[in-house]
């Protein structure tokens, strides 16, 4: 496929705006002009900055001015660079980070490997998003019995949440 910008070179990079869900195919030259820094591994990091929208509510505006006590970064600085300053930032800005993670990954909870010596998760990792992704996988693999079980789990989790 040809680059949808210059229409001259072969496209090799898919650029997706996660916020608007639109996508275009670009050659690497045009992708670079778009501000996508190419790596030997695909990284959406560099145009992420453009996706992190300005906070809308007053509460969020207040949060955006929060400063991480560890590294001193503010959410606004993170917005402009697309990189956090220290591991603590996820916690400090969690109210703003969670919707962002959901946009990028379609999930806000880790379910994979844990470093040596980390205690196992207390809730057995049964978060809604993990179950939803498990359901999707089961349906795709045509494991319908599994899918039905997962659906039940999701339902009971949702009931619990609405009851609380």
């Amino acid at each position: 496929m040809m680059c949808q910008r210059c229409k001259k070179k072969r496209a090799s990079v898919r650029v997706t705006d996660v916020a608007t869900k639109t996508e275009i195919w670009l050659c690497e030259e045009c992708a670079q002009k778009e501000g996508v820094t190419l790596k030997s591994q695909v990284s959406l990091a560099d145009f992420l900055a453009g996706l992190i929208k300005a906070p809308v509510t007053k509460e969020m505006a207040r949060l955006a001015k929060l400063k991480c006590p560890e590294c001193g970064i503010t959410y606004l600085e993170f917005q402009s660079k697309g990189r956090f300053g220290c591991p603590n930032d996820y916690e400090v800005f969690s109210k703003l980070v969670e919707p962002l993670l959901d946009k990028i990954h379609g999930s806000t909870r880790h379910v994979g490997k844990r470093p040596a010596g980390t205690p196992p998760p207390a809730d057995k990792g049964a978060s809604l998003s993990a179950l939803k992704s498990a359901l999707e996988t089961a349906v795709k693999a045509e494991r319908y019995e599994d899918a039905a079980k997962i659906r039940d789990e999701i339902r009971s989790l949702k009931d619990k949440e609405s009851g609380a």
Partner: protein
Amino acid sequence: MELSAFESPAGEWLKGEGPESDIVVSSRIRLARNLAGHHFLSRASTEELQDIESSVGTYLREDDGRFAGLYFRMSELSEIDRYVLVERHLISREHSVPEPGRAMAATGDESLGVMINEEDHLRIQSLRSGLQLREAWQAIDDFDTGLSEKFGYAFSPRWGYLTACPTNVGTGMRVSVMLHLPALVMTQEIEKLFRAISKINLAVRGLYGEGTQAYGDLYQVSNHVSLGRTEEKIIDALEGVVTGVIAYEHKARQRILSTHRLETEDRLWRAFGMLKSSRVLSSEEMMHLLSAVRLGTCMNILPAIDTRTLNEIFLLTQPAHLQKVVDRALSPEARDVERAVFIREKLAAFS
């Protein structure tokens, strides 16, 4: 840095062995990790970065031991040497900028590699030739566990491995498979394939950041969701897609043979002739011709050139490698001449 420092002139990913190696060049898994108790790169002091480099470096060379032969600080390498590492996919282009605290390590066979202080404190990667994602995962899983015992990672039970950029958080994992898809390019089905793949949340791109094209019909398929799925699920999903693409490429190869046999044979033999006899050969043209020759040998149309020879041509004629091979700096024009000389010698035995 001497090229002979690498155990094999072509490295693990260019060995050309392993399952599905007529289409799958290599399987790669990368994990992004940060050390607990330190700032991420953008907020860390030079001193802090150098401390990380020195303690991780000592561990890799002395405690682990497998990295004793290939360990380099970016600031201590010449520009050409840094580009050699980029061309071998051992470091990213960004990492080749010699900032303080940046280093790389690899095992002699290049199946495991580490970038220290790239975008995260550690970027570790595992490589296998052919389609061997599970083997690649096992190797990196063990290595990663060892590192976590020694250093302690920035980890949250909620969000997983914490990374400088939230696109990598969670598993910190990027799985990618490099595929040679010349028949799908010829039949112009590659576009359809790209669209299908992008709909299921995977990314496709060309081989190198360098240049402007999907060089030599080589494409990398990778995940970009790293949070909310287990490592096994991410690998399963990618492997499923790749298996489909392989079948698709096989079908396209059969179809061009059954419908356009003479044209295909003519095209592949011409590419072979040009590759063998050119006097001036740009890197781009070489990749294009080499792709056809690779296809021709896989389809038993051209003489059986071993994959290793093809891979050596591929790697050793990249600009930085070529200058190491002839042991002097070359202008782009001189490179095109030397590239043709090198390839003529390599292919002289085949006709």
